[in-house]
């Protein structure tokens, strides 16, 4: 399967990165990683980019392209997925509130409502 992984800069993105790399190794998916521009998040776009490259190296996966996407995260991600030949777009599956409520942000909502591909939310 040809998988596109979209990352922001949150802990949720780090978890999603780890899980997706594990899955890629298990089943031999083709993977492309894009890091969106989300100024309010914990890690900068550059930091997240480096973390993704390092994680791939650590997992000994060499044939994965990692790119930075500028502009509005949701639409940049959906555009990228639309231009390429992807079977699945993978993004973080939301955060938990103190109460334990699942919270999906506006980027997730935009992606779910606009992506032409299957979308996978990682929990």
């Amino acid at each position: 399967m040809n998988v596109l992984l979209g990352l922001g800069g949150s802990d949720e993105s780090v978890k999603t990165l780890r899980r997706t790399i594990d899955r890629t190794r298990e089943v031999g998916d083709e993977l492309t990683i894009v890091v969106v521009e989300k100024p309010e998040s914990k890690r900068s776009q550059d930091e997240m980019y480096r973390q993704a490259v390092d994680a791939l190296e650590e997992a000994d996966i060499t044939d994965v392209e990692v790119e930075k996407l500028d502009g509005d995260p949701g639409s940049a991600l959906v555009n990228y997925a639309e231009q390429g030949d992807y079977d699945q777009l993978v993004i973080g599956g939301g955060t938990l509130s103190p109460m334990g409520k699942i919270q999906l942000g506006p980027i997730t909502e935009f992606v779910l409502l606009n992506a032409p591909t299957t979308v996978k939310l990682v929990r």
Partner: protein
Amino acid sequence: MAGTRQYPDDPSGPFPSPPTTVEDRDGRSIEVRAAESFTGETLDDVVGMYTEFDPTDRAQGIPPTGEERIRTWLETIGDDSVNVVARHDGDAIAHAMLVPDTDDPAAVEHASDIEWELAIFVLQAYQRAGIGTVLLKNLLGHASDIGIERVWLTVERWNNPAIALYERVGFESTGTESFEQEMAIRLAGDGNGVTGDG
């Protein structure tokens, strides 16, 4: 996340404080009490209530289903949470709670410094009888009594009856919304709640 939410400038209230006993729209006598501690029998009763809860009314993943997962959920949030329980003939039939939005247990000592997340659940057979409104107001009254000033919640954006209820007591939209709408209320937090029936 904490510290960035927009709260109304002015406090809402005053709200009634528990304990209180009211007659619901179906003529049932409903007793509302704050839980001294959320352990033992009170916890067991509330776990029992959630095992009866119809999962079609779940919101954003809570309550979980199955007694074990329900107990784990309530125990996890239970330590520092503020709980008000409504009962009919001794059985817990509605539960409202506030959970501190902090990872630091010591911070909970200063209730006014932190933000509290609210949730409320009413068993299906007791919905549309005015119990949710009474329970919500009494939770806010109790919260204000113990010094809590900032309360927030999220509600599914299409849940108009719930949003209308929250607006009636003073919650305002914070402007953060996607599938869920975030709302916030400011309380006086000065312990001047009105005691008695509400």
